[in-house]
């Protein structure tokens, strides 16, 4: 049975809110989120699994040809879903400093 997606009223932990904010700011793969938030890998990746399970974020492998051209392994990119965006908005209201911690203009080009 599919799990019920979270609604915008869902209360997130600070860590999960931080990760959503980082994703929204353009840090779209695990290591970049780690670098931005300062959270360890043992926190970031499990949190992203839970967010993906709750359908707040969605993952997608980049095309192998791009990775081959850059002589590196393919990355798994994450992006916010509509529910994730709504939840992030709610979280921003709950954690007003969130946006200041990771402003959107810091986004990287990937």
């Amino acid at each position: 049975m599919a799990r019920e997606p979270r609604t915008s009223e869902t209360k997130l932990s600070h860590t999960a809110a931080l990760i959503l904010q980082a994703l929204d700011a353009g840090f779209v793969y695990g290591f970049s989120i780690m670098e931005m938030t300062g959270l360890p890998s043992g926190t970031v990746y499990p949190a992203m699994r839970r967010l993906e399970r709750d359908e707040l974020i969605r993952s997608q492998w980049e095309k192998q040809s791009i990775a081959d051209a850059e002589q590196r392994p393919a990355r798994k990119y994450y992006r916010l879903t509509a529910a994730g965006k709504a939840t992030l908005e709610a979280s921003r209201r709950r954690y007003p400093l969130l946006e200041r911690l990771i402003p959107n203009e810091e986004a990287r080009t990937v």
Partner: protein
Amino acid sequence: MRLSFKWKLGQWRFDPLRFGPWTWSQWKWEPAKRLVYFGLLRCASLLVPGDRRAEWSREWRGELWHVRQACAPAGCSGWKGELEVTQFCLGAFQDALCLRRAGGQPGQAPASVEGTARQCILILVAILAASDGIALLLPGVRAELSLWPRKVNPNLVLIQSQGSNYNSLPSIYPGQFRSWKARKQKYFDGFAFYRVKQESIELGPAAGARQGRYGWNVAHSSSNLFTLLGLPVRFSETDDSTGGDLPEVILGEASWKRQFGADPRIAGLVMHLGTRTVRIAGVVPDGSLGLPGRVDAWLLEPDAVMGSGAPGYVIAHLTAMGQAEMWAPCVGITANGPDEAEDDLLGVSLEEWRPAPGTLYGFALFLALLALPAITSVSLGETSVNPQKTSWSVRLLRWSFLSAKIALLLPIVYFVSLDLAYGFTRFGREQAVYIQLISTFLMSLFGLRWVLKDQRQRCPVCMRLVAHPAHVGQASRTFLDWNGTEMMCMGGHTLLHVPSLPTSWFSSQRWLYLDTSWGFLFAEPTRPVL
């Protein structure tokens, strides 16, 4: 020098860590680092459910490449960066565990073995295997088990001068010994002589790491000494082709353990004893002989070689007539010496109770069984009202489980006591006997107490340990009311009531059997688990 590795599309399978130019100094460490990082990720991946493992590994390996680029880029060889990469890899375990928890289905969860009879038996088997393995590995224990029998022949006496008054000083001269041996005796039919001298021994290159010079107490003894004592010489050579014409020396057990690490292939080794070259012919147990004088090795010599020097000790074997006269452990003897003068001597019996490890073990176990009721109730606490009458097969299983626990406990106690008593070569045999006796007694006593207590706290239906104790009442205040502890079987079969203060109406623990209506509270299976 820089090495670069190019990746040919379509020819090689992609390997993230092959990328990037590295210096030679980096490259030589690369295999070890790869082994560590990939090993960590591989271990973590084993925690991930099988259907998600491949994708999980791909993502973490891809991320690892980026992490290495950022933390330990080409040209940098700092360990700080490598530490960060390692920490990153360790995070994979938390991620894997998270996936495992999320991926597990309630129906597929493995049945818990905690507190089951099977778990108990497995733990006991593991302890038994460990204690037995340690006993086989420790040279002292191996030697103790291999050197039996230790008891000397019966009807042996140590003859010494009456003036020595049991002080074990050598008092018989070789001349006296030879004259007694030459004459026909009424009370004795065999004599052997030995005297102890401090001598240096030198082990040659054939002894390997044991090569060197040592000071030993060497007993120069009659060649028939061990035949008279009835002690087998262990590890003796069957092939006399090597050094057969050399004088033979027999090592004492303590020096064999100390100097040769209890090596069973000791026979045939040639060494220098004073100015002579001798050959090791075997090992004899010491400590149990009851012979005076601390001896490291026995040099067997013909009686004629003994000369007329320093005094020593004489061992004699009693005839039937002699045995009849030996009415006490120590009797006076009058003997004619070489000059026909009468000497007043003492005959001290060598028969002494020297228990074997098995005898000691049995004795200590017997004492423990006697003492057991003093420290715990020997009842199995089966008193209960059972409306559903436990089947005979379950009862048989319960008794089999109790028997299995005892059957495993007893050899564990035996091997652990041997490990403690004989595993340390610094203990003499006399001390080892006491250590074995005390350790066997204590381990048997408390081990059996545990067996009974464990049995009392196992559900009569499924034999799982009851859990979640709840204290009811206050024993100090409500003396006349029921007070005690209630525990429940996690399979939902029973509740156990244990009174805090036994009274005339509630003196021992009781089982309350729960009917099937309680089943919905418990997820565990209701059949016996063994």
